[in-house]
C-alpha cells in the first residue's frame, strides 16, 4: 500500500524520524502561540526552505494542505465578518505553517521508520504495562489487513448491488464485520499455533513481520 511518503535523497529525508517529530511538536507549540507577524514570517520562510531542501515539488506540498484550506478559509471569513479580520488572518497563517511543517515530516519519513520510532518512544512506558513489540505487531497486522478488508468491502458491495441494496450501509457493514471477526479468530489461532505468547519476552517484530500476519487466513 502506498503511503504519503515522497521519496527523494535529501538531508531532511536522512534526519531520524524521532528528531523530526520532536521538531514538529516544539515547532507547532511555538507557532500556534505566536502573535508576532515578523516571527511568523521567519517560521514560514524556514518551513518553505525546508521543503526546498527536501526537494518536495510545490504541487505535492500544496496537495497536503488543500483539504484544510476551505475550513481555514471559512474561519477567516467569519472573523472578517465580525470585524476581527486581523485575528482571522493570524489563525489562518499559523495553521498553514503548522500543517506544512507536519506534512513535511510525513512526506520525508518512511512508514517503517515512523513505526520504529513509535516502538522506541513506547519503551519507557513498559512499567505501565505497555508492550512496544505487541503494539508494533498489532500495527503491522492492521496494515496487512487493510487491503484484504478493502477487497472484502468491494466484494460485499458488489453482491449487495446485485440485490439492489447498494445504498444500505447496514447490508454492507454486517457481513463485512462478521468476515473480519472470523479472520481475526483464524489469525489468533495461527499466531497461537506458532507459539506466539503475548506474555513472553518482547521480541523485536519490526524487522520481520510475524508469520501469522503474512497471509490472510481463509474463511
Amino acid at each position: 500500500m502506498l503511503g504519503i511518503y515522497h521519496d527523494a535523497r535529501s538531508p531532511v529525508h536522512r534526519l531520524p524520524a524521532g528528531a523530526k517529530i520532536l521538531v514538529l511538536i516544539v515547532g507547532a507549540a511555538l507557532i500556534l502561540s505566536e502573535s508576532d507577524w515578523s516571527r511568523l514570517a521567519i517560521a514560514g520562510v524556514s518551513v518553505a526552505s525546508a521543503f526546498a531542501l527536501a526537494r518536495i515539488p510545490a504541487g505535492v506540498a500544496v496537495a497536503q494542505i488543500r483539504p484544510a484550506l476551505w475550513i481555514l478559509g471559512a474561519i477567516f471569513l467569519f472573523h472578517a465578518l465580525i470585524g476581527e479580520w486581523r485575528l482571522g488572518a493570524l489563525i489562518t497563517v499559523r495553521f498553514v505553517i503548522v500543517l506544512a511543517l507536519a506534512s513535511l515530516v510525513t512526506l520525508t519519513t518512511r512508514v517503517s521508520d515512523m513505526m520504529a520510532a513509535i516502538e522506541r518512544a513506547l519503551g519507557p512506558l513498559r512499567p505501565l504495562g505497555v508492550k512496544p513489540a505487541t503494539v508494533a505487531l498489532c500495527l503491522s497486522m492492521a496494515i496487512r489487513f487493510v487491503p484484504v478488508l478493502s477487497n472484502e468491502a468491494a466484494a460485499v458491495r458488489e453482491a449487495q448491488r446485485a440485490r439492489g441494496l447498494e445504498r444500505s450501509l447496514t447490508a454492507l457493514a454486517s457481513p463485512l464485520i462478521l468476515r473480519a471477526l472470523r479472520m481475526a479468530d483464524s489469525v489468533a489461532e495461527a499466531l497461537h499455533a506458532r507459539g506466539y505468547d503475548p506474555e513472553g519476552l518482547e521480541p523485536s517484530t519490526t524487522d520481520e513481520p510475524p508469520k501469522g500476519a503474512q497471509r490472510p487466513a481463509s474463511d
Partner: protein
Amino acid sequence: MNTSISQTRDLAYVALFAALIAALGLIPAIPLPFIPAPITAQTLGVMLAGAILGSRRGALAVLVFLALVAIGLPLLPGGRGGLAVFAGPTAGFLFGWPVGAFVVGALMERFWDRVDFILATFFSIVGGVFVIYFFGIAWLIAVVGVAPLAALTGSLAFIPGDLIKAVVCASVAMTVKRAYPLIAQSRA
C-alpha cells in the same frame, strides 16, 4: 489457563477492526437525499468498534487506526493522512474518536443483557455523536480560536449523517451480537 490465546485473540480483534475502520473509509461516500455532507462510513466503523468489541478493545482499535494514519498512510476519506491531520482545524474530532468508541463500548457492556435496537441507537448517539462532537467543537473553540457559535453551526451540517450512522451501528451491532457475542465472552 487459556488466557494466552484469549489475549492473542484480543490482539487480532483490535488489529482487524483497525483495518476495518480503514476499509470503511476507502469505500466511496454514499450520497443521500436531504443530507448536505456526503456520508463516509468511517465514523460508523468507530461507533461499531465500541459497540462490538466493547470499551477497551474498541478504543484500542481506533487508536491503532489513528496510529496508521499518523505514520503516513492515506486512510482518512479523500486519501488524507499523515501528521498534518492531527494538527489541523478538525483534529479534535479525531481525538474524540477513541473516547467515543470507549463510551459506546462501556454503555453496551453495562447494559449487555437487556440492550435492544433502541438502546443501542441511543448509546451510539451518546458515544459516537455527542462525545466526538464535544471534542471536535472544543478543539475548534480552544485551539483554533473559532467563535463558539460558528463552531456549533458549522458542525451541524454533519449531524444528520452521523445520526443515520448511529442507527446503522445499532442495527449492525444487534445482528453481530446474535452471531458473535464478543462482549459477553469477555465478561464471562
